């Protein structure tokens, strides 16, 4: 099993908006303008990180994880760190109860960048003969 990359992780709240809507986590990364949706396995991991559960407890919180579960979880968490969605953290100040077990599913996310120009909150408004205001088209369009 791959070593889990960090003893504790946290969500950098200043850069990430995230919400569980009807069981589906939607995550927006403010800096990049990317947004993400998570499958059930990833959603479980995200919820545990948000609750302050230590990564070393993740595997045992899945029901019937396969032998490669540890590797998959470690890779997934490292990917989230790379995307800026998680960052290493100190131990939470409050002890966190064991998470409720959930069925195993290899964690995956879908990453979207189709709204990047808007979500990066860097719109360039222009006023020209078409009247005003409208967003300048991104380069290449």
């Amino acid at each position, binding site marked *: 099993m791959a070593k889990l990359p960090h003893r504790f992780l946290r969500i950098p709240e*200043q*850069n*990430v*908006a*995230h*919400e*569980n*809507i*009807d069981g*589906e986590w*939607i995550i*927006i990364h*403010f800096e990049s303008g990317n*947004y993400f*949706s998570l499958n059930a396995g990833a959603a479980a991991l995200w919820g545990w990180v948000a609750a302050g559960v230590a990564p070393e407890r993740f595997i045992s919180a899945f029901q019937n994880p396969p032998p490669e579960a540890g590797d998959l979880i470690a890779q997934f968490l490292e990917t989230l760190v790379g995307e800026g969605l998680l960052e290493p953290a100190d131990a939470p100040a409050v002890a966190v109860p064991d998470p409720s077990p959930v069925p195993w599913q290899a964690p995956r996310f879908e990453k979207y960048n189709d*709204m990047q*120009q*808007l*979500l*990066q*909150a*860097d*719109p360039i*408004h*222009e*006023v020209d003969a*078409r*009247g*005003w*205001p*409208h*967003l300048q088209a991104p380069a290449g369009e």
Partner: protein
Amino acid sequence: MNPDAPPPGPFSQILTALPAAYYREAEAAWARAAANCGISREIDLGIAGLRFRLRFAGEGLAAQVLPALDHLALVPSEPPDWTFHCWNGPATGAPIPRPTSEMRLGSRNECLPLVSDGRHSVFYQEWLGALGLIDRRGTALACQLRPGPLPLYEEAAPFRALFNAALNTAGCQIAHAAAVGTPRGSILLAGPPRSGKSTLAVQCLAAGLHYQSDDLCVVSAEGPPRSWCLYRSAKLRADSLSLAPPGLPLRAFTEGGETKHCFLADEGFPGCLLPAAPWKALAIPRITGAPESRLRPASPLDAMRALVPWSVSEVPASGNAGEKIMLRALARVRTYHLDVGTNPAQTVALLKGLADGF
């Protein structure tokens, strides 16, 4: 703070002092405007449970921006939560120097980071000729940088950046959405600009639904989601002018190459405004041309795409706080695609059913 970190040096101290220093500089310009021209108008407005006191120096600016806002007027009594000082720099002889290119480096969502920190923010809308500064302890400065009348877009929805920054501190956000409903509930109509939200909102208005916005309304996710009417302005496209009552004063402007006609909603439809309501649902309209209108459930991702990115891009000062507020609210309202057919009465009935239902 890292205990091993060295104390800030002179350069760091200068940088961290910039936001407060720039705010003081702008405050001095406001004081000059008030001394030169006097306070021409003072009005208290109630928005989402907060009391805003708007003070105007000099003539002209108040008369341009208050028609869109004066439905929110409160009797001035208790101290306000926020005081906005508003003036036209050139007209009052008290301009603020335009932000330098250095100050504009890294500008995002029209916020200038070099002169902004957790307490102060500066919003520079160059295209609009507007500079807004906020001190989150309860004051703001709104300076028009150009002489003469405001663009109609600003008249119809003034001080968006400052209102939004102030509302964010109370868990509210200005959303880019039309909003209609009944006293039992509101429905937000969300989607990209020019997706038909404004026309649909005015159709609802003409059919007797109450009105909160055709473009920008206030939403909150603290407790059960709510929405508020912020601006009472509304717009009609040329091909929808038949919806306007005869004799209604209309003012034309161009948006995206298209001529639109702006009016005050309750001038055309007295009693139509819905100041506040429980926010029941979000609908994403799409004009189909089919005879029937229908509602279909929208996924959380679709709802997010329809509301959040457009609000962030259209409402200055939205940022990460605004995204959080909107996502939290979306988790608690029902979300639908609205296929808009050719029978407006049926579309309005669907929306009324949503507003009155569940």
